[in-house]
């Protein structure tokens, strides 16, 4: 394992300039996350937690400060290099799934492989991930023909298909019933047990407590960063082999 943290943020600020209206969203954030951790970023809506996740996920750039992802100073990387890092090292799971409509489950999961340099055996790799997540029987369903819980599992499979180092999950249970939500948390914990770093963004304490560590954001400032004392373990899962 590398001797530097997977995520290393120093004095990060984010300021939006919307046609002259200047809004500072993040103030002097310092944060380190080691490879293999399971971290929740918590905060009320409007606190800046999503903006932080977008910057950590290389979807956005800081206005000032430094961010080292896996040893790369992202201020020195081009947009295409960031796209490549997102493709190879990062998986995203969104609250609203963001599956392509009128497209099969298999093709949705294959999507990151289309943008990857390694285009060998795309069908096999996508199918394998889907089978591992318990959706082997839904390969050729259209994404709008399956339930919400299944949609989120497809989204997780899509995030996993390139074997990323870290998965960013932005309110992954927000649109799900509690049973499906528990399934999703089970999958994320199982993935973490196998060594994948998980960064979970949520405003619910219950969900956040599935992590090992909770980082709280309030009004754009990092207000607390503490380990979870009584970590919640999602119940024994039958969806992940």
């Amino acid at each position, binding site marked *: 394992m590398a001797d530097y943290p997977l995520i290393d943020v120093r004095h990060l600020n984010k300021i939006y300039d919307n046609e002259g209206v200047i809004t500072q969203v993040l103030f002097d954030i310092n944060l380190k996350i080691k490879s293999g951790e399971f971290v929740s970023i918590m905060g009320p809506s409007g606190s800046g937690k999503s903006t932080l996740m977008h910057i950590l996920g290389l979807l956005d750039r800081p206005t000032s400060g430094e961010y080292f992802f896996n040893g790369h100073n992202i201020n020195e990387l081009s*947009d*295409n290099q960031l*796209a490549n890092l*997102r493709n190879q090292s990062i998986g995203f799971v969104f609250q609203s799934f*963001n599956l392509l409509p009128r497209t099969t489950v298999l093709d949705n999961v294959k999507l990151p492989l289309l*943008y990857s340099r390694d285009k060998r055996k795309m069908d096999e790799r996508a199918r394998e991930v889907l089978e591992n997540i318990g959706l082997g029987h839904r390969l050729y369903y259209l994404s709008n023909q399956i339930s919400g819980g299944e949609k989120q599992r497809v989204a997780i499979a899509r995030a996993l298909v390139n074997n990323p180092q870290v998965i960013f999950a932005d309110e992954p249970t927000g649109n799900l019933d509690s049973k499906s939500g528990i399934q999703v948390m089970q999958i994320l914990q199982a993935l973490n047990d196998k060594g994948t770093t998980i960064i979970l963004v949520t405003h619910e304490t219950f969900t956040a407590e599935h992590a090992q560590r909770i980082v709280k954001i309030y009004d754009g400032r990092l207000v607390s960063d503490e380990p979870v004392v009584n970590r919640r373990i999602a119940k024994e899962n039958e969806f992940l082999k």
Partner: protein
Amino acid sequence: MSNKVRSFLTMLGIVIGVAAVIIIISIGNGAQSLILDQLKSFGKDLVIVLPGNSDEGPPSEAMGITITTLKYNDAEALSKPNNVANVKAVVAYYQTSANVIWRGNSYETAINGVTANYFDVEDSSIDKGRFFTNEEVNSAAHVAVLGSVVVDELFGDVDPIGQRLRIKNQTVEVIGVLKSRGKVGMQDYDDQILVPVVFAQKMIAGVDYLSSIRVKLVPNADADRAVLEIEETLREQHNILKKEDDDFSVHSFQDVLDTITRITNTINYFLATMAGLSLVVGGIGIMNIMLVSVTERTREIGLRKAIGATNGQILRQFLLESVCLTLIGGSIGIISGILISYLAAVVAHLLRYQWDFVISIPALLIAVLISIAIGIIFGLYPARRASNLEPVDALRYE
């Protein structure tokens, strides 16, 4: 489903534009071939002499003026080998029209007075009976050879050979029927009566001039030299000293062909350009709908970027989509254009025109290339809009 309807409606502009271009090029070529092909097949080595100086502006007949300067003895002079070399035949024409009557049936048709060697310059032949002889021409014999339309109109099922017709106040005997030939250009060769030229001049019209003279040269003779020799012979005949004073004009058939080709080409290009303009309108439609599509799919674009698509990959995806739209539209346009051109050819054949169904392969290739070009040109702006979206903004888009 609504997307399919929308895509189809979007493509319609391209479909119509490409079809219009194909149809106009095909029908233009067909019309051109209709005019040119038959003229070419028989018109080679042909020189036409018309009364009046061609440099004097519009043809005099168009102004209702008859020029009477061309005479039968001019035609005789042109047939003499020491005047004009390499002449195969000289045919004198006097053209008029008249009402013809047989047993109470009457029919208005073209009366063409010609010489006995008519078939040397016309792509025609006798179907029944015989043609008139030199002696009959010189003696202004009361004989006639009928086109098939005239036979049908006047005689129906009766054999016309040997029957007597009235043309104006003259009685003529039908001695032959022409083989049906159809329309060439605007002229219907089946709707005419051929009579000896001297008979037409003296007995029917009461004139002593000719409408035209056609000189057929031996194959591959030097037409330019023949034109000069014909001009000199006629100046001598007419006592003219300077070319400016000519009261006749001589056209080698190649000149006529070149002129007609030039005119029809110009018309074709003009029409094709007008049709091409509709392609631009179609392209704007494509751009419009691609912009709508980019807006609708903002979140999809955000997601694709989140999972690693580069700006270039997004640009290519949207360009490919617009090119697919225009290419499919172009293909449908090509197919419908060919079908409609084919129908036009079928209708033209039914109307007894000798119409070639021409689909030019270069035109098809150009249509395909234009479709692709429109897809790229009008897809570029929407595709750039898509590729320049910030991933975060795109993902947040509601």
